[in-house]
């Protein structure tokens, strides 16, 4: 096993032992949310703000991009994630962070229910949460 895999595992365990979907930051803590809305020209920005531990998420996201290089495009990822939430960018921007958070949480659970999962270094993650972290890695 090489060092990067070890580091990645450490990051992932740090991130995920905080609690699976609870890795999504509580909306109340996303203080930067409102001010960042203006940045919607950056693909997926409202989504990426939902994750509190950005450094760890970036490591997982990088692993996802290595496994699925064809998704290595921020715009594509953002559209894919929003599409899976039945949203487009305008609707996402209009949603309160709590609502977006809830939709994402539900989608992640649906992913697990429907076996839409991805295996990264042994971790079994929802496809949507993995894509979200990939988006962070690209941001």
């Amino acid at each position, binding site marked *: 096993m090489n060092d990067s895999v070890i580091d990645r595992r450490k990051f992932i*365990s740090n991130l995920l*032992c905080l609690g*699976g*979907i609870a890795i999504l930051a509580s909306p109340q803590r996303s203080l930067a949310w409102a001010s960042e809305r203006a940045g919607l020209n950056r693909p997926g920005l409202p989504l990426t703000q939902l994750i509190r531990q950005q450094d760890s998420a970036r490591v997982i996201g990088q692993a996802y991009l290595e496994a699925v290089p064809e998704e290595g495009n921020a715009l594509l990822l953002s559209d894919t994630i929003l599409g899976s939430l039945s949203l487009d960018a305008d609707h996402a921007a209009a949603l309160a962070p709590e609502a977006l958070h809830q939709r994402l949480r539900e989608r992640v*659970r649906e992913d697990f229910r429907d*076996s839409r999962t991805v295996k990264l270094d042994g971790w*079994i993650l929802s496809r949507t949460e993995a894509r979200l972290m990939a988006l962070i890695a690209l941001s």
Partner: protein
Amino acid sequence: MVIDAKTVPENQSIETDICIIGAGAAGIALAKALSTTKHRIAILESGSFDFNQDTQSLYQGKNVGIPYFPLHAARLRFFGGTTNHWGGYCDPFEDFDFVRREGIPHTGWPIQKSDIDPYYSEAADFCRITTKEWKNAYWEEQDKSPAFHFEDQRVDNKIIQITPSTSRHFGSIYREAVTAAENVTTYLNANVTGIVSNEAGRQVSHVEVATLEGNRFTVKSRQFILAAGGIENPRILLLSTKRHRNGLGNQNDLVGRFFMEHPRFTAGRFYPASNKIKLGFYSAHKVNNVQIKGHLVLARKVLEAEQLVDVQMKLTPAYDQKYVDALDAKSGNSLVYMMKSLSHGKAPDEFSKHLSRVVFDIENLPTFAYSKYFKDSLPVHHVELVTRLDAVPNPDSRVLLSASERDQLGQPRVELDWRLSDLDRRSAVRAAEIMAEEFGQNGLGRLQMNISESDREWPADTAGGFHHMGTTRMSDDPKQGVVDKDCKVHGIANLYVAGSSVFTTAGSGSPTLTIVALALRLADHLKKGMASS
């Protein structure tokens, strides 16, 4: 009556009605059940009432397959057999275990669960299980510790009961009952070196016995029961070559094949969403004064749909390191030791040493106390998913006689070539994947797997449970099994096998309860047969 075989004169021929070879769980259950008859019963036990290193070393052998425990450590060779280190886990097999299963080769017993059900209750008594209730719903209702419930029911809970530690050593518990019976004679230090049939080869005439001191004698009997364990049973049959060149009952090259264990290894780590997750249901704990333990298992519908073998997951929590370290603290352990001594009215040994440890590390005592006495409330860092498989019956997984190594009696030692299959691996992988999906779907956390279908090796911690099964498997077809549904060796009129070597599949339960139930069923069969003859 007890006779030390060392005192039996050389070349003496002993006659009896029923000869039981081995005094482990099966042998003792048989002897006790048959002690109520008028038949003369002889038990031939290799060991004595206590552990003896020289006798134990007769069990030495070589592992040539998947790394396994040293063979002389995986079983015990004295009165009581391997129950002398039994963990006490009891749960009956299920209907599902006995049927032929689509996609899983060599499954399907010649008996159904209903054939053995009448004996499970008595077997539970024998194993000192106080509650004959095995339904999960009953225990979940009684239990204050909550179990997980998954919406789409792909994962179920399974309960095992645990025999109290004071009741597990059948050699101690049943010694008086067996040795006091007037019609039972127990020969200690009596090693069976071969089973000899008549000239036609269809009936056993006698067994040959040797002691480590050198005297040899024979035992003639109307019926013989081989109950020496899942490795020694095939060994004795393979050693019995006087009339059968390939060994007794081995006309179809099946003796020793299909060796099964319940392989167990850490298939993954579960990182819970909350470090306050409650796992008490999945650790050994008492409910209504009965010790039980919960496991997660794949639901039957999943096993059938995906053609997987049975998989059980034991949840073993790992706590934050500071609590683990605190439990090892010398100060805390010294304090506990001193308090225990004083509560028994004794002055602690090395009082000043223990006192100084407490005094110099006093600031860590609160953490020690919290860790020790509130273990169920400690923050959980992660949970090890220790996986146990009902391994696929595999003819290439086998017990063989060594071509070069011999024991103190001059007999070939065994070699164990334990093998697992791709289907075993796929079952473990799918189980972990399904658990991960269930944990994720229910917001419980995430799972990191430690095993993959592309692995060439099994996880480094792969081991067994000292469960040696399948080596004289049961089948109606002599080309598929060594014994028939009555546990009689195919082609031999008066030779039976007892113990887990007759298991056709390893089963979802721990073996001891079923070993005893099958032994009691065999005792009934013998009683009826001998009464009619």
